[in-house]
């Protein structure tokens, strides 16, 4: 219709103004982005800000109350442990302790501490401080706090007054010598001393900020300001704040660090939960490194010139078998049939991230105790069918539980892995009922507490180089997950091997355990080792990928 000229003109002006505004913002933004990225990339080899994109929120910054990698990443930069790993390996080397030794019974551990090391608050790192940490853990009061010390419960068994407690006492023989006495030997030592959860924190700061106060608040817990605002360790970085609105954890270089001082001035850990968005931020240049790229993206990123750093595989994915619900699964032949039915090589080829390999044992081949001559189950549908027929289990129907809404380094895509494995089993004549359960919405409960499944997939990333950390954790005692209460000779053999103090004898014992696991027991079928990766921009130097996902960023520098 006839709108007047003035009306039309006004409208046109409005539209034009809008378009100009949008373009201006875009242009300003571009200038903005150039400014920011230019500022970082143009610096010399030392200094600058290193921005690392992590995959999840940390819980808090008190090491003993944490158990997941996302919390440990910032914690690791701010604290040190008595013993640590050579960068990029699972080999031990001295951390806060220059050297360590144990007595022949394996119960008394002596640590010779480094001299002149100070906590971030200036107090001295000495034997008294070390013992204060051990005693603190052992004497922790309150179920709230105790329930959050997951690694402590796992390694040290229990708290003060508990008959399961492994820790006895700690003495400061002299300021540089701490002697820790255990009630019994565990194969976990000395490897367990490298666990980030057992980092040494400043007793002064802990006292000042009431570090032991963990209170229940509704359906979760509230932590002390030591854990949330004043983490104080001896590490290469000091705490600079956590901006939750933008998801950035800022860490500053510690100029008084006892070891290799950080090469960058500032480290920002930016939390980006979606793996695709992480990749996009890397490409846009707003972060210099990302963790856990999607396996499908690694090649593309490598082709574009980014550095894809593969961590040596130190994890395991297994198909768990629960013998409780279906009596046929108690027959070794049926379990072997399942092993033969799985085309693991094809799974690795089609779904495995770069560097993945079929697993024949439940631990990676870099761990002492790995048997090189273990019985392999090469893919054979015929053998599977034959064994099933022998056991009278043709036409077997099994409930196969798998997790959803989760991605783990050893299991990047559970739904796809399940589909492929179920497919293989169907081809061998085993009928599969797929039962998806959300990771935190029933999977862990159903599988590990109630044992409702016949089959399930699960895995594990190793904490330190000790066969007990893998095999012992899974099969060292009866677990609901495997319904294996009857396999007592398995428990005994593993228990014996784990209690062996002499390294050579322990290695031989575990090698035999691994052979027997494959031939005699087969409580589960190992599937693959899948190395997670890191990706960085070209100008990031010195980032050493760790098989334990335990990277330290003090060696990182940004070049031009």
């Amino acid at each position, binding site marked *: 219709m006839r709108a007047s000229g003035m009306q039309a003109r006004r409208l046109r002006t409005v539209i034009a103004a809008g378009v100009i505004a949008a373009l201006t913002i875009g242009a300003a933004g571009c200038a903005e982005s150039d400014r920011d990225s230019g500022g970082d990339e143009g610096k010399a080899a030392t200094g600058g800000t290193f921005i690392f994109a992590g995959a999840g929120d940390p819980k808090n910054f008190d090491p003993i109350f944490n158990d997941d990698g996302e919390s440990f990443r910032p914690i690791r930069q701010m604290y040190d442990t008595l013993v640590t790993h050579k960068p990029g390996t699972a080999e031990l080397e001295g951390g806060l302790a220059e050297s360590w030794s144990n007595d022949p019974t394996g119960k008394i551990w002596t640590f010779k501490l480094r001299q002149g090391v100070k906590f971030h608050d200036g107090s001295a790192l000495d034997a008294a401080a070390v013992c204060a940490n051990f005693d603190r853990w052992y004497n922790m009061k309150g179920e709230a706090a105790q329930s959050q010390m997951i690694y402590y419960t796992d390694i040290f068994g229990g708290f003060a007054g508990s008959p399961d407690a492994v820790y006895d006492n700690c003495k400061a023989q002299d300021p540089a010598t701490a002697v820790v006495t255990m009630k019994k030997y565990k194969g976990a030592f000395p490897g367990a001393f490298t666990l980030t959860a057992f980092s040494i924190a400043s007793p002064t700061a802990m006292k000042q900020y009431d570090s032991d106060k963990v209170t229940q608040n509704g359906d979760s817990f509230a932590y002390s300001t030591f854990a949330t605002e004043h983490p104080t360790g001896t590490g290469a970085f000091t705490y600079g704040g956590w901006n939750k609105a933008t998801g950035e954890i800022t860490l500053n270089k510690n100029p008084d660090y006892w070891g290799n001082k950080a090469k960058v001035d500032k480290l920002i850990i930016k939390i980006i939960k979606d793996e*695709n968005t992480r990749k996009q931020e890397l490409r846009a240049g707003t972060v210099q490194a990302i963790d856990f790229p999607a396996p499908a993206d690694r090649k593309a990123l490598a082709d574009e010139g980014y550095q894809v750093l593969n961590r040596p595989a130190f994890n395991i994915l297994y198909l768990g078998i629960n013998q409780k619900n279906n009596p046929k699964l108690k027959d070794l032949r049926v379990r072997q049939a399942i092993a033969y039915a799985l085309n693991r090589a094809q799974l690795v*080829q*089609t779904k495995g991230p770069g560097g993945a390999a079929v697993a024949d044992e439940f631990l990676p081949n870099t761990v002492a105790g790995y048997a090189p001559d273990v019985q392999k189950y090469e893919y054979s549908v015929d053998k599977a069918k034959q064994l099933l027929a022998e056991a009278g289990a043709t036409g077997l129907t099994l409930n196969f539980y798998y997790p959803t809404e989760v991605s783990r380094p050893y299991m990047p895509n559970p739904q796809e892995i399940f589909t492929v494995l179920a497919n293989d089993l169907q081809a061998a004549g085993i009928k599969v009922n797929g039962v998806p359960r*959300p990771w935190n*919405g029933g999977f862990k409960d159903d599988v590990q507490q109630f044992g409702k499944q016949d089959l399930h997939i699960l895995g594990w990333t190793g904490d330190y180089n000790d066969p007990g950390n893998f095999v012992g954790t899974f099969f060292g005692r009866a677990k609901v997950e495997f319904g294996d209460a009857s396999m007592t000779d398995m428990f005994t053999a593993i228990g014996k091997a784990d209690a062996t103090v002499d390294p050579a004898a322990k290695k031989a014992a575990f090698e035999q355990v691994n052979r027997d696991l494959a031939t005699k027991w087969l409580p589960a079928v190992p599937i693959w080792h899948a190395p997670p990766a890191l990706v960085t921009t070209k100008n990031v130097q010195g980032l050493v990928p760790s098989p334990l996902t335990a990277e330290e960023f003090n060696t990182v520098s940004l070049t031009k």
Partner: protein
Amino acid sequence: MSRTGGISTLADHKRRRIDELTARTAEAGGVSLIRDAGRRLLRDPTAIVGGVIILLFLIIAIFAPLVAPHDPVQRFPELTQHLTVDSIPGATAGHPLGSDPLGRDFASRMIYGARQTLFVGVLATLIGLLLGVLLGAIAGAVGGWVDVLIMRITDVMLALPSLLLAITLVALASRSTQWTVIIAVAVVNVPIFARLLRGSMLAQRESDHVLAARALGVKRRDIVLRHMLPNSLTAVIVQATLTFAVAILDAAALSFLGLGDPDINRAEWGLMLGVDGVRYFEVRPELAYFPALAIIAVALGFTLLGESMREALDPKNRR
């Protein structure tokens, strides 16, 4: 369109749109109105386009086993041998659209996907429709406090945007399955149909032929079932076509958010787009583009037809 007031609430507006629709179709002379509308529809290009799209969709969905070259769940060795996590084979002999991330025939999955998408959309719409019609009929026929109660509940539900309601329902469910998605989307549509039916009932209650029937002593139940419900049919059908489009879009959104059907064996477009399409977008964007285009086309088709039907039934256009 309402001209009577300033800013109203979400529920208010949805209510008015639904009420208008029922008002239009509840007028006496329903048959000639429908015949009129039908004639107008056949001349309307948007209706034709929408109708053709829907027809194509229905044919593919119903005759999927005949149209598809392969089984949608079977993994083919000729595809898996070239399959890696960062390289998915494209079109090869016997597989016109190439492979999906697990070595299955993508073309077959797209075709069977029509079937599953139809299933989800139809069920979500149908369940919502049946429950809504039931509630609305009761509210309209019985009246009184039953009416008020039902309308209060539907008001609350109408105020919430459909996806949020669906998310809340999934969150409160113990786990996600295909049925969770269907029910969530269905529940979202119940208040719309309830409102529709109730409005239609109320409009017809005072109409001549109903009054006459009651004067003659015809039982209330018979009046409702034999006269009032059939007259509400047109409005319900129009709303159903519009609801279908939103239903499959919401289902796709739920899959994208990780709240959808976890069984990736099932070939359903929303699932294929929201899970595989997004994850493997760089490796093989076709895995996203094809389901996306299919969803857009079908949603478009239903929207076109629904809108045209609504326009055609508008008595104002009878001039």
